[in-house]
């Protein structure tokens, strides 16, 4: 036959605009407002940290692809997006080698050692964060002093809370300043302005890069537990709003907790996961040695993901019960 050859394959024959590259680009783009806020607060140091993180993540990715015999490619944008996200967890003072060690752990233990993106059981960002936090706690919490003149403390809000208690912390950091971002506040790059992070988060939800359930449940879990203990003992515990706006709660809720491979896939699973991550965030902040509990909280919650994935939706029609058959003789026949 001399007819032209046509492609035969299973439907669907059309595809949506979604791709891994698009998800990664959206994640990268969503972090830019937060990066801008960090630049405003810390100057060029913020860009230095972000730049080193992105470049080193790309370099490690290529090297590890070589080592593990994978085709060399950076085009899915995952190294850039994860590199930038990881930078958001670092202080502006982080030395270059600390960042490079972090991105190595991120790419090795969060991706390549398990076979690639999607096969990783743990969130690479959080593995890298945990590794550096345990190895170099001093460097990881060496936040630069705020640049504003009239500051009441040089500590980050959650450190102030841990050291001085809720009353002093609330006095040093009015909620509005925490939310909009202020040169009186210090912390990791992504912890300066929840407003900037929120802008990125809304972008992620609007483009359906992440589901809205996880951030909503995270905030609910954190606020509920913080509210309960605030109610029981206001001397010891900060207000729920302080907990929501201080530190990395917004970053954790929008950019870290919804990490695709390590968060649940079902609506109910996501709800439980978010609540758990939020509750653990409060627990670690309140009762552990670490001032900031978001990242460890999300990490611990992600360990429950395989279990939460068993919370399946009810299949269409599963609640069906057959009606009693009605005998009927149609009129026209």
């Amino acid at each position, binding site marked *: 036959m001399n007819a032209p050859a046509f*492609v035969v394959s299973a439907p*669907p024959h059309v595809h949506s605009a979604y791709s891994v590259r698009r998800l990664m680009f959206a994640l990268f783009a969503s972090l830019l407002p937060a990066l801008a806020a960090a630049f405003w607060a810390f100057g060029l140091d913020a860009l230095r940290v972000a730049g080193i993180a992105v470049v080193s993540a790309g370099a490690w990715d290529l090297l590890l692809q070589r080592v593990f015999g994978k085709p060399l490619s950076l085009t899915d944008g995952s190294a850039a997006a994860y590199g930038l996200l990881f930078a958001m967890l670092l202080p502006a003072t982080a030395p270059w080698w600390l960042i490079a060690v972090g991105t190595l752990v991120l790419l090795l233990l969060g991706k390549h050692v398990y076979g690639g993106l999607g096969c990783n059981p743990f969130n690479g960002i959080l593995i890298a964060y945990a590794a550096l936090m345990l190895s170099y706690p001093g460097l990881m919490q060496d936040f630069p002093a705020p640049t504003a003149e009239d500051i009441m403390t040089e500590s980050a809000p959650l450190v102030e809370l841990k050291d001085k208690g809720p009353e002093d912390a609330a006095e040093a950091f009015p909620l509005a300043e925490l939310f909009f971002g202020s040169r009186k506040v210090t912390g990791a790059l992504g912890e300066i302005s929840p407003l900037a992070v929120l802008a990125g988060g809304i972008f992620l939800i609007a483009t359906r890069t992440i*589901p809205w359930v996880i951030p909503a449940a995270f905030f609910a879990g954190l606020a509920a537990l913080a509210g309960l203990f605030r109610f029981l003992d206001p001397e010891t515990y900060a207000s729920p709003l302080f907990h929501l706006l201080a530190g990395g709660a917004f970053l954790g809720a929008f950019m870290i907790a919804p990490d695709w491979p390590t968060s649940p896939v079902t609506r109910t699973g996501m709800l439980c996961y978010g609540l758990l991550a939020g509750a653990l965030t409060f627990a670690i902040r309140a009762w552990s040695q670490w001032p900031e509990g978001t990242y460890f909280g999300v990490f611990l919650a992600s360990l429950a993901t395989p279990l939460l994935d068993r919370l399946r939706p009810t299949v269409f029609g599963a609640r069906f019960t057959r009606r009693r*058959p009605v005998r009927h003789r149609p009129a026209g026949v």
Partner: protein
Amino acid sequence: MALSRMRGGIALPLAVEGFARPFETLPLPSRLILPLIQDEGGLLEARVKKNDAVQAGQLIAENPQPHRASLHAPAAGKVVEIVSSFRDILGRLVPAVVIEPDVSTQRDESSAPEADPATLPTVLGMVDFDRRTQPLAAKLNDAAGRRIETLIVNALDQEPFLFSRGRLILEEGQALLQGIASLQRLLSPAKTVLVVESRVPAVRRAAAALAGGATHVFPLANRYPQAAARMLARAVLGAEIPYTAGVTVADIGGLIVDVEAVAALGRGRPLTQRFLTVSGGRGNLHNVRVALGTPIGRVLECCGIAPAAGGKIIAGGPMSGPAAADPGLPVTKETAGIYVQGPAEVNRPAEAVCIKCGLCVEKCPMRLMPFLIAGFSEKNRFDEAERYDLFACIECGCCAYLCPVGLPLLQFIRFGKQQILGRRKGA
């Protein structure tokens, strides 16, 4: 009420101009190829021999089982061949009757045969064009003896890329009314609803003109796969039916018949043609009336569409239609449309890994976990795939359409179903 009454599924873009293209009647080809499987009812037996002269509308094949659909000659002519094994679009090897039409005679204009209204669908070869074409007689038989409160006439197109059902509302109102009337006589439903696309005012107006008495218009925004029987039944009747074998829409008091089947019934002549949307991309969009047995390539030729090598010819819509390897394959009662893609539009599935984003779970209209059942099927873990309700999948393809990684999820799911069914047959 511009609502879609559906959870999950996807809002595909709707090209409203498709409804504005009137049906063109295509000329007869030099050869009509009629495979002897035309629906889910199984193999037909030929009732003509080689070199027989046939009249338009003459019976040429019958199904030995009861409540099935016969097959009729779309045109007068001569049976030039009875092929014993013709490979049809789904790869089945079936006999086929080949008719050389006599161009001097008109197409099927025979008058309605006298018959009992209950057996008429069988005698006239009527089918219902659901996602899978079924003999109408089988559907009516299932409904017989049960209380059908609501007769649902579905004018929502299977996919937003097809427009022939909406167009039928605009052009075939008279036949539709007669078809509705005869179904009403047969089933005596308390009410009849005519489900139409809510976003096309012309179609809504035409539907409203057909309504009256116990017939109501039910506008729905066609969020894919809203036109699938289960989704439609849920939207209209408010109840969900499971995938358990033997449970049908009749169990919740409804019967869904699509508008093309109703119009065919109303015309009262043997079913020998299909109303199709033919799309060649870049606005090359036609609604056509085509004789069964016309080669797809001939239809495309008439529409001025030249499929390019390395492209795809899809018999149906791009979400769920099978791809045709050969443009010589004929239009049958199972052809839902023709959609041609150029080589650049052909998407290639990825060899990559699921990143567990959860989009397929969120959008699955049957509330399954597509990535999981596809993954189990891919890894030959069929028991687990079945435990996660593999067989509930209606094969709409939303999962694979959305998958950011580009996994061929529906293909894996189909593979799993075939393997399990094959093993059961073998055991």
